[in-house]
């Protein structure tokens, strides 16, 4: 459940940054500038955070597994979207959930 809580906070942070990027344009984190923020992307990240949170609250692993699947798929999609449009979103950071998802599915 600790993992679910950590991922909840991580995706909440990404959601907040995505909203800021959507509202105020470019956000620079060191060498990284995110310019493709959108409210709908923030909605997806928020949904992922909410799924992890529910998993932590009801103490069920299934929520973290599905949330990680969504986060991984969204991350792959955002990377492809970046290659196609040169516009980047905080969704790309969802790949952090991929090892957890693979571990769960293997199990």
């Amino acid at each position, binding site marked *: 459940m600790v993992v679910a809580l950590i991922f909840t906070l991580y995706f909440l942070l990404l959601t907040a940054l995505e909203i800021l990027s959507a509202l105020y344009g470019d956000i620079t984190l060191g060498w990284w500038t995110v310019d493709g923020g959108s409210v709908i992307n923030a909605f997806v990240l928020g949904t992922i955070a909410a799924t992890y949170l529910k998993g932590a609250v009801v103490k069920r692993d299934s*929520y973290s597994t599905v949330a990680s699947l*969504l986060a991984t798929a*969204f991350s792959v999609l955002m990377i*492809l979207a970046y290659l*196609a449009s040169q516009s980047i979103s905080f969704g790309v950071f969802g790949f952090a959930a991929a090892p957890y998802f693979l571990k769960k599915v293997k199990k």
Partner: protein
Amino acid sequence: MVGNPNVGKTSLLNALTGGNFTVANFPGVTVEKKEGKGVIGGKVVTFVDLPGIYGFETENLDEKVARDYIIREKPDLILNVVNALNLERNLYLTLQLTEFGVPMIIALNMIDEAEKEGIRIDEERLSEILGLPVVKTSAVRGEGIEELKKEILKGGKVPKVFRGSLEEKIELAGRIAREVAKSEKVGVSEIDEAFDEVFMDKHLGIPIFLSIMWMMFVFTYTIAEPFNSLLGKIFDTLASYISGLDGWLFSMLGDGVVAGVGSVLSFIPNIAFLFLALSILELSGYMPRAVYLVDGLMARFGLNGRSIIPLIMGFGCNVPAVLATRSIEDERVRIATVIINPFMSCSARLPIYVLFAGIFFPKTGSAVIMALYLIGVLIALISALALRKTLLKGESEFIMELPPYMLPSLRELWLMTWVRTKHFIQKAGTVILAMSVVVWYITNYPGGSIESSYAAMLGKVLQPLFSPMGWSWELVLALITGFVAKEVVVATIGVLNVDIASVMSPHQAFAFMLFTLLYMPCVATIAAIRAEIGTKWAIFGVLFSFAVAYMVSMIATEVGVWL
């Protein structure tokens, strides 16, 4: 090939024909017909995949099509595809099929999945009871296909006939299933249970569904965009090169045929990506869950859960959205979903809103544009309700089945995507070719420029029709050219050098935006509608949307004057 829905008939068709099959409609109806040829032992065998059905006792269109086909076309053999995971329910259809007196073979498909679930089936005993050859197959993995081909060559056997009432057949199917199938493990797999718990969660189910829809949207439009642009550029270059040559023939070929057909062909990446995404959702088993989630809401408007995906896709482009209605099994619901789809504001209409909102509503532009999208959704749902209460009246028969989750195979994804995309190219391409030539002619003749063309004359002639809204003939002409593609409305206003701020007031501009949102679909969408539900409904769709657009924009103008 006859079987329940979701038993893997299409996968088996793929395996037996090596993907050599075409998708069309059964004559006179919108039920999808897949037909393919496979060479077995040097003989060419034609396979026809009939729609998935559960039995023959209702008036359901799919059942009627399947029954009529077996009676009228008299196939040499019925290949009854049975889902090994749910033998009892599938055998009920098998018992009904025995009454046709046609030789049969049973393909016990998804046997690998059944074995994973601990289900063991004694196929020899089943064959003995039914008096039919039974072959265990896994179409996705290519298992049992060679044995099945051998049985097909032998021609199957005329089965024992099992007559009796509905209840008797159900009871008999249950008895046979209990005798031949043994389950060593009870319940669904852990991963299925885990996925269902979350995907069907009462709080998170809908947000997750919307997130997945957004991902599909990004995949279909953003990621396909470079391919679209590339194709667009190729066709543009080709069109300008050809039209640059001397003579009307080159002008027609360049500006008419290549530009027009190219405008449709440049949608192919979108369409292929959409079909790929839809195939992933269908084959993975997620789609039925999504449909279940939104079914209650959609049912209030006479639609069903399957309508939601085409409606959401319509925000990107109505062409693939119309094609996405194929997953709707109920014909009336499908027609209603196709007809209302152009009310979902596609991305091509955005430049029009941006132009007008920027000039007339500089401070509240975003809210105005958002309002237009919402009005489109509202009108679509009201229209669906109206259509389902009148022209498309009738109960929607909708049986929901939740198949197990599966990882789709790449070969199957490719085949499903390619076959559907090819169908679009063949169908839409032919109509577009003719329409492109017509549009080229009326925008170039007799004067040689758009201002002195038949289209301009038409604009002037039709202008009085739009006098209640107070639009000039130039704006009417822009609407006419917008018939080709909605983006062209803005281009025409540019070509004619219209100072829109001086020729209309804000409420007239809002009414104009409403009109462009609702009036007839573009040529490519009409071609897709015609290909999917026929010419009669395509004409109805054009007239219906025009009438709705006219009424709504007139009301908006009147309310604007009154305010």
